[in-house]
């Protein structure tokens, strides 16, 4: 969890671009820039800066933005709800696509239905979500203006980006659901469930899917973590003021504290999500139970 922010920290020190220069303006006199460097602390060796940063982070002190002078934590927490709701909606979309289609593909494997499912999955995996996002925007916001073109104030704004995210992620999960379902449907307890005279839908969704979802859940959790940090370009496409955009613009402006705080935050959330998935896993799988 600390590794990523550390790498980011030093990469920022190596890449060209001086925050003092950006803050002061490119044509500012060199004394002004030098004074700013001293004020921002960027004139000192990177290791010293790193030590100072780590110590302040340990006290939950993320510093203030170089550009807007607002506390970094406040900036992040302002943007995070939108990113979170986008990730949740995207995950929901992904599961809504992956589970029924995956089950269908597994049940009718090696038939035309299955092939269509696989074709869809292949396309979904190959299509970058930002490109799909642009297409969706052109279709449903420009040509047929059903959804708003940009902004993020209402749930309506989230529909297109989460569909774009959901199709991309769902395509991956679909294959997983299919493989896991094929495996579960071949198991003996399915015969036993059928021998009880249960309807096929109950056999599939209550008996097989319950077990098939275990491996899917792990991957979905990891993907959810990625969505929290990885929707940067999608947020750009849809002009959503989320965490991704915050970090992206911070990168353009060399706003070191925001970049560092943001990546640390994403890494922390990512770890937290994985931890929650592990907890959830033990809840779903009775064989792994803590305490």
């Amino acid at each position, binding site marked *: 969890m600390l590794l990523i922010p550390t790498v980011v920290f030093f990469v920022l020190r190596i890449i060209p671009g001086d925050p003092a220069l950006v803050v002061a303006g490119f044509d500012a006199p060199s004394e002004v820039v030098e004074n700013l460097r001293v004020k921002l602390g960027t004139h000192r060796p990177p290791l010293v800066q790193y030590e100072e940063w780590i110590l302040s982070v340990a006290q939950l002190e993320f510093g203030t933005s170089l550009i807007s002078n607002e506390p970094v934590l406040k900036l992040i927490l302002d943007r995070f709800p939108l990113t979170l709701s986008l990730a949740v909606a995207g995950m929901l979309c992904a599961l809504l696509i992956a589970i029924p289609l995956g089950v269908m593909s597994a049940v009718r494997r090696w038939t035309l239905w299955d092939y269509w499912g696989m074709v869809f999955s292949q396309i979904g995996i190959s299509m970058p979500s930002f490109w799909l996002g642009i297409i969706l925007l052109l279709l449903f916001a420009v040509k047929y203006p059903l959804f708003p073109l940009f902004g993020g104030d209402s749930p309506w704004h989230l529909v297109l980006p989460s569909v774009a995210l959901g199709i991309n992620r769902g395509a991956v999960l679909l294959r997983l659901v299919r493989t896991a379902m094929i495996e579960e449907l071949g198991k003996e*307890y399915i*015969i*036993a*469930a*059928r*021998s*009880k005279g*249960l309807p096929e839908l109950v056999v599939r969704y209550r008996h097989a899917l*319950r077990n098939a979802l275990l491996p899917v859940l792990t991957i979905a959790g990891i993907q959810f973590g990625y969505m929290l940090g990885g929707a940067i370009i999608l947020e750009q496409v849809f002009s959503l003021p989320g965490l991704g955009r915050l970090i992206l613009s911070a990168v353009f402006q060399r706003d070191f504290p925001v970049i560092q705080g943001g990546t640390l935050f994403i890494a922390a959330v990512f770890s937290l999500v994985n931890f929650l998935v592990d907890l959830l896993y033990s809840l779903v799988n*009775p064989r792994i139970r803590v305490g």
Partner: protein
Amino acid sequence: MGTEVLLEIKDLSVEFTAHQRRIPAVRGIDLTILPGQFHALVGESGAGKTVTSLSILRLLPPNVTSLRGSIKFNDHDLLQLSEEVMRNLRGREISMIFQEPAKYLNPSLKAGVQVMESIRYHMGYSEKAARERVCELFEKVGLSDPELAIDRYPHEFSVGMKQRVMIAMAISCNPSLLIADEPTTSLDVGVQRQIIHLLLDLQRSSKMAILYITHDLGIVRYAADVISIMYAGKIIESAPKDLLFTSPLHPYTRLLLASIPSREKRGTRLQGIPGTVPNPEDIPPGCAFHPRCPLAQQKCKENVPPLVRIEAGHRCACFFPGKELRSNP
């Protein structure tokens, strides 16, 4: 009991296709089960016993390419029924227990839920009534602390207890036929005995017929009413238990009986049957048993002996029924 018949299988044959080869698993069998009867179907592995039982429930795997004959259950031909009607029979009129309860129970559903399912689905019980019924059933099959057992997951039970859960599941709707596919094979000897006794008790108390599938003649010795012996996809001898044990007619049956250890045979070397069961992919022509049979003649290699009635209730498929076996050819 009268003369009414519960299950009547006529000329059933089942063929699989695997790797573009046709594999005849069951090659025309006749089998009759009366209401409340304990019918044992005995044969070595690969003889087609399990395929026969799965055909009754119509739960054969999808690579079955040919299913012929008829299976009459209470005057309905199961093979002609719609899937809908068939599903209503499964679990309610005909149910099944399996060899390895660990594999046949869903690992992520509580034991009680799995038993409740069929009760709620077939008999429309409310959640509460179904729970009570499960408690009753668990008590009946000898699970201690039924209230606790309901909320346990399968992995929290021992194998013997899992089999009891399976039995509770199978008898939950008072079926008239219970198919038991080697239910004791994976259990310890002591537990085997308990399970057999449990099944016998249930059969007697609820007038349920049992089709008991096993490779172990010894285990059905005291339980079965009628025993049918299967070999390479055919029934080769069928008789009431006593008759089969006192005057077996088919050489295969007699060799099987000779291979059961018993007190009288103590100290003598147990007899085995020479050779192995033929692979269903290449069953020998004529009588399938002839390569291993001490009585085999030219006739046996060319013609298939039909299953004929020798005396009341005793049928045998051999050209030389009851002929003396030379002990050491």
